[in-house]
């Protein structure tokens, strides 16, 4: 497949100039994330091989695939943690993700929930949300500006939404696994990103928690674009939305869950085992 976008020099410089104040993502053309021919190699192992993936604005996309298919590496590329050897990655029409730092990408509007819940264990639940709250992140602003009552209100609202209202002054390290997952989702939401990347959001959750999480994610899809990496097929069925199957670093199949489950190649490499 011919890449639609390559990475010419001009947008690079433009991206660099934007670095000081990450620009607003340009969502025209209804595509929020372009990955074109992304290749990532670790010590000779091709984690991603010519991966091409488009996520539309407001889309809820599930990504599945066997271990080592490149799901987490794909998220690493999108969030700036890993630089691709080849290929282009754009956020909207204008932001070249291969040129921005992790911090700039986060500020531009891409939020990520990690596979292992990574909340700040020695901070309280409220402090965790406060750290994540959208706002000016520069040292002098944070040093001199206190939180206004509006900010506190947003935190309180999120505490209720993630069912942690009674736990706000507990240390996050003392929460149950499922609660930590919820806290992390809450932290993601108060950042107010346009694109959410969720890496196994229901790992280690009870059935009831899983169901509530599916409900939350579906409600988010109305206002956000979402990419969910998950193993749990029942959960993916609850989410609905298009499914992309990754295998050995490239897209094996794409379609509704029923379509990909009937795809013979998918059955062969993944579901059939």
């Amino acid at each position, binding site marked *: 497949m011919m890449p639609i976008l390559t990475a010419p020099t001009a947008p690079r410089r433009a991206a660099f100039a934007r670095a000081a104040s990450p620009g607003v993502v340009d969502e025209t053309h209804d595509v929020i994330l372009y990955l074109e021919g992304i290749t990532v190699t670790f010590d000779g192992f091709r984690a991603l091989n010519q991966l091409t993936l488009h996520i539309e604005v407001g889309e809820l996309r599930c990504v599945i695939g066997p271990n080592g298919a490149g799901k987490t590496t794909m998220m690493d590329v999108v969030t700036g943690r890993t630089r691709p050897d080849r290929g282009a990655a754009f956020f909207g029409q204008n932001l070249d993700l291969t040129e921005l730092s992790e*911090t700039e990408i986060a500020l531009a509007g891409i*939020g990520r929930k990690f596979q292992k819940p*990574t909340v*700040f264990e020695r*901070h309280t639940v409220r402090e965790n949300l406060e*750290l994540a709250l959208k706002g000016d*992140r520069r*040292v002098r602003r944070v040093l001199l500006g*206190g939180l206004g*009552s509006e900010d506190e209100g947003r935190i309180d609202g999120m505490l209720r939404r993630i069912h942690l209202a009674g736990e706000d002054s507990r240390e996050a390290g003392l929460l149950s696994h499922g609660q930590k997952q919820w806290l992390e989702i809450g932290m993601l939401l108060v950042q107010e990103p346009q694109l959410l990347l969720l890496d196994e959001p229901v790992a280690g959750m009870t059935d009831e928690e899983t169901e509530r999480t599916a409900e939350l994610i579906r409600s988010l899809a109305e206002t956000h674009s979402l990419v969910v990496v998950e193993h749990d097929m029942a959960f993916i069925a609850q989410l609905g939305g298009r499914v992309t199957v990754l295998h050995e670093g490239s897209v094996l199949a794409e379609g509704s869950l029923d379509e990909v489950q009937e795809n013979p190649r998918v059955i062969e490499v993944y579901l059939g085992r």
Partner: protein
Amino acid sequence: MAPRKSLAVRVLESTPRAGWLALGAFSLLFLGVLPALHLFTPAASRLHVSDLVITVGGKIMCYAVVAVALDLVWGYAGILSLGHGLFFALGGYAFGMYLMRSIGHEGVYQSDLPDFMVFLDWKKYPWFWTGTDHFLWALALVLVVPALLAFVFGLFAFSSRVRGVYLSIITQALTYAGMLFFFRNETGFGGNNGFTDFKRVLGFPITAPSTRAVLFMLSAALLGGTLVLGRYLVTSRVGRVLAAIRDEEPRVRFLGYDPLWYKLFVWTLSATLCAAAGALYVPQVGIINPSEMSPANSIEIAIWVAFGGRGTLVGPVLGASLVNLAKSWFTVAFPEVWPFFLGLLFILITLLLPRGVVGLATRLRRPRRPA
């Protein structure tokens, strides 16, 4: 709807009531009672506070400021510096230049130049001594030069994401390099003898009881101020970001914070506090030489912090005080045992008291809950 709280209110609220009471008691004693008893009671009186108490006390308070400064970066931002002695010594040297200029013609060679320059057969001051006869310029050097060095060093170290033990090692190398540089006579800071034989500060005789009392009070004020500033910082949102960087730096990046600027801020602030302490230390002990920059000195600072309890602010003050009082006693009673004692102390606190004396106190008061 509560409006945003003003900075003053937030500073006031950052230290708990007990903290303000303790600080009040400390101020009363160290800014009032002790200096007054030193100055206004006859030497024979049982209430008299001796020269020794005032100079050792002032010196230890300067050390305590350095310990709190190290705690800010180590305990709250996870940056273990083993080179903080360098910033302390640079502050001391910067103010020492002013003290050297204040000697005037009263040196051994009765020259315009300090004795060590006459000895080297120099005819005029090197360019970087320009203006050091002015108190305010010297003060500016105290605050700016170490801060600038810390900023540039931090910029390179933190932006290349050097962390943990690697950072500690390069801070050791930095202070060692500083020591070798200052050992050279050609550097222009008196070589291995450094600066000494000061006569006066701001026109006042440097060994007069009243001068000593004022320096002692300034040290106490600096220590109190450092503690209030430190408490505000670590309880502020910046403090929470720093603690988050300490615990999970990569995660902080994905929240959109750039750890570089947060680390640089606290690192530079810490170095500046050390420099201010160094500048107060030199007139009280009457000497500054390159041995203050020796790697072992900086490691000792880390021991004070660990012994008192890192991440507690008050702990490092206790640590610096107790270790230095022990040192004063040991180096008189059993001078050869001191290094072994210090080493043993460090091993024991690392193994048994991860949160130092303060951690022990909290554990004794509140027995650990069964898991």
